[in-house]
């Protein structure tokens, strides 16, 4: 009797169930994955476009920019510039994966393995996700946010709500306390607290800004204390708590954007690992299914074709080169960990003495749990992968009319390349370092930001528009100072 899970390549709900069973078997028993309960939802391609345009979240509040993204996606999809993702997966419990109805049965199998087991495992186990997100409550929170913002639009008019959201979105990346662990979010508590908070914050802001002259002030000439006492990198949080001009409902909107920004914080930092791990998982599972005779040779070939399509890395000189493909690089590194553990060369023994003879799966699971892109590359990018990918390092100085190749795939280059690439994935090199240093409460109410540039890199002109948005939220003048030292021609620091 044939062991094939399916014999024709059209999916049906029964087949999905059978395949999911088989995948779960391998994922849990062989790969020892630990996942949230799975919820698999079938949607059409237009629904996929819908989901795409609002950060992939199913319950996002309404905003024109999502409409813009939708139009753009639809445009480039129809013109053939870009294909659609086969899946979207949401970091929630249960973990929701969207499958497109247009996918063939083989594709659905691949996607279930990739999203419902690969990503799902990553969400549940990676330390950043554990620290920053609460999978149990995100959907509830989004539904609260959506309702709240719709209510605000009704109550205060769409224009002002939109303006507030625009402003918040401009500084959405500055909504995270990088050094503090956030409290978990919970819909019910959120709704209960929202009102209390509204009143309290308004009260606080009023006290802070009460302009009644104080007798003591006249007699004691004290030096104005800096406020905030320490520079703040969570700009949204600062505005939410201390802006003199926001209405209480606007503070709540700032908070909503901040919370959603926080939800995405781990995803930005683990894109490469997350996609790499999910690809590694689907590759392993699909191969096992094929080896077991559960999928046919033809379907296996279809899988290989789409797998290699998704995991293509274009070279630097390709017309369509657009940086590293996180799927491909992540997959390459995970695959290489397995190779190093099971079949090491002398070079590997030198570079990764601690991996030799280890259980490869144990090492991979540990990496998933305890690393992010930056540290993952620094720890695991091997000379083997550097050579295979022919990675090279370029130094680009502002004063020069040319760029210099400063490292290639050879003995001298490995460490440089690893360090630079890791650096490329650090939060610092992704996001300009901007902090609130002073809010002059006593006189001008001017809010002062500092930008700490690295290696003389300046902000581009869009900063002016962003400042306008911050001014809208703050209500008074906002300025930004570049704290860079004069650029010495030769210096080039690693961050």
């Amino acid at each position: 009797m044939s062991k094939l899970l399916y014999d024709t390549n059209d999916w049906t709900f029964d087949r999905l169930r059978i395949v999911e069973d088989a995948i779960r078997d391998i994922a849990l028993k062989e790969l020892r994955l630990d996942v949230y309960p799975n919820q698999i939802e079938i949607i059409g391609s237009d629904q996929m476009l819908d989901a795409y345009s609002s950060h992939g979240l199913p319950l996002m509040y309404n905003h024109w920019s999502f409409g813009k993204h939708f139009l753009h996606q639809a445009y480039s999809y129809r013109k053939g510039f870009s294909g659609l993702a086969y899946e979207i997966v949401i970091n929630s419990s249960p973990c929701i994966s969207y499958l497109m109805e247009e996918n063939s049965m083989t594709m659905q199998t691949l996607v279930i393995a990739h999203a419902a087991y690969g990503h799902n495992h990553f969400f549940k186990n990676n330390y950043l996700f554990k620290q920053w997100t609460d999978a149990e409550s995100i959907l509830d929170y989004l539904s609260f946010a959506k309702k709240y913002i719709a209510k605000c639009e009704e109550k205060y008019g769409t224009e002002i709500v939109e303006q507030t959201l625009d402003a918040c979105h401009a500084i959405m990346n500055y909504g995270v306390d990088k050094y503090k662990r956030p409290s978990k979010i919970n819909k019910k508590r959120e709704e209960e607290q929202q009102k209390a908070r509204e009143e309290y914050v308004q009260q606080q802001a009023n006290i802070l800004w009460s302009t009644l002259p104080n007798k003591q002030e006249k007699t004691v000439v004290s030096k104005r204390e800096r406020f905030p006492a320490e520079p703040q990198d969570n700009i949204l949080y600062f505005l939410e708590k201390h802006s003199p001009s926001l209405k209480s409902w606007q503070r709540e909107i700032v908070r909503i954007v901040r919370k959603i920004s926080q939800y995405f914080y781990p995803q930005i930092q683990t894109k490469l690992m997350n996609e790499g791990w999910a690809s590694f998982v689907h590759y392993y599972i699909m191969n096992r299914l094929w080896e077991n005779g559960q999928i046919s040779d033809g379907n296996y070939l279809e899988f290989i074709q789409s797998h290699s399509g998704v995991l293509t890395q274009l070279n630097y000189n390709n017309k369509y080169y657009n940086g590293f493909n996180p799927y491909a690089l992540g997959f390459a590194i995970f695959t290489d960990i397995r190779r190093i553990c099971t079949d090491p060369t002398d070079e590997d023994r030198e570079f990764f003495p601690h991996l030799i003879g280890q259980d490869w799966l144990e090492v991979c699971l540990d990496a998933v749990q305890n690393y992010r892109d930056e540290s993952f590359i620094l720890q695991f990018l091997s000379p083997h992968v550097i050579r295979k990918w022919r990675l090279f390092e370029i130094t680009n100085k502002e004063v020069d009319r040319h760029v210099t190749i400063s490292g290639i795939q050879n003995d001298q280059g490995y460490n440089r390349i690893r360090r630079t690439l890791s650096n490329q994935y650090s939060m610092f090199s992704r996001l300009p370092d901007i902090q609130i240093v002073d809010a002059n409460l006593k006189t001008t109410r001017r809010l002062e930001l500092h930008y700490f540039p690295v290696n003389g890199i300046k902000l581009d002109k869009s900063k002016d528009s962003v400042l306008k948005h911050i001014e809208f939220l703050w209500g008074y003048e906002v300025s930004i100072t570049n704290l860079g030292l004069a650029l010495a021609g030769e210096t080039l620091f690693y961050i």
Partner: protein
Amino acid sequence: MATIIDRRLNPRDKTIKNRQKFIERTRDQIKKSVKDSIDSGNIADIENGKIRVRVKGTSEPEFKTDPKTGNRRYVMPGNDQYVVNDTVDKPEDGGGQGGNQGGLGRSEDDFEFILNKEEYLDFIFDDLELPDLVKKQIKDVKKIKMKRAGYSNQGNPSQLDVVRSLKNSLGRRIGLARPKNEEIEQLEQELEQARAKKKKKLITELEERIAELKRRQVAVPWLDPFDVRYRNFVPHPEPITQAVMFCVLDVSGSMGQTEKDIAKRFFFLLYMFLHKKYEKIDIVFIRHHEVASEVEEEEFFKSRESGGTVVSEAIKLVKKIIDERYSVSDWNIYVAQGSDGDNYQSDYNNTLAAMRSLLPVVQYYAYLEIVSHFKVQWSILAPTELRKAYTSLEKSYSNINIQQATTVKDIWRAFKKLFSKEKEKATK
């Protein structure tokens, strides 16, 4: 075990609100774009429903680094030729190679997307209105809509009207004097007391009364199937207004390809417009020179005839077709005529007579006179024969309207004048 859910039947256009918000935000620019697309003569694109629109001012700013500044180090894949210390000239625009400035080579502030047909037409016909739109009996019933129609004692559970059912139940219970529970409870209490006091006669009496009440309570149920009412729905034919549009085109020798092209665009606009307003629309193509004939669309725009012009023939044919096929009470009738205005002098009176019999039955008669470059150039702008005739009709008939066009660009203006809302107000 995973839960598998079919979401395909969920509402599809989830982002429609976002889309509307975006379009609202860029309304003015889109409007201009749409107008440009008409002026440049790309009307034909409408049919494909793909109108590219470019708008500005939709950027979402954030703090970003300027790729042209600072010193950087970055890694790229696929080294095929370089060794350490090789140099490569920076591209002229000073680009940073490393960053991920993706996109499709459009500037960030320039956002291009496709309007769908509906949205596009909304923009085109935003401030236009069909004169005397309301009309007419319905002949073609296409849609059946379910409408509420009172209550029924049959139906499915989802349509159960609880309030109505309980009202019935209450009425029946009162009418049939169904004993209440409290009544029985009270008697039972009395019975209890009677038993305590051992009043035998009272006990039997009470027992009998209680038994009787209980019997009646069973006989008259609290809720009888008889009480249940369902909200009733009946199929209701949805009225669909219908229109017929006559396109009358002069194909005599004096009409060149340019003139016909202008006329064609005009007809097309009109067609789209009517299409938006009416669910069902018929089009009749009539072309004429000395004789008039009804033709297929293809033939209508293509072939060229020679010879002189007798307009009255065409008008008579329109009237004849109306009499034969389009009863005035059932159809909204529109006539659009494109001509260079030439007509035999001898036909003047015939034309007037034919128009006088036609105009009362049509909703609107739009006449577009295409003035050739030649005439403009030589300032031969004296009223044409046809215009003279129509102008004289304008006084007594409000449903005829005359416009002129020389180039494709004039069409939109002319079209707007023919159908603008203000015009309608003015005539009222």
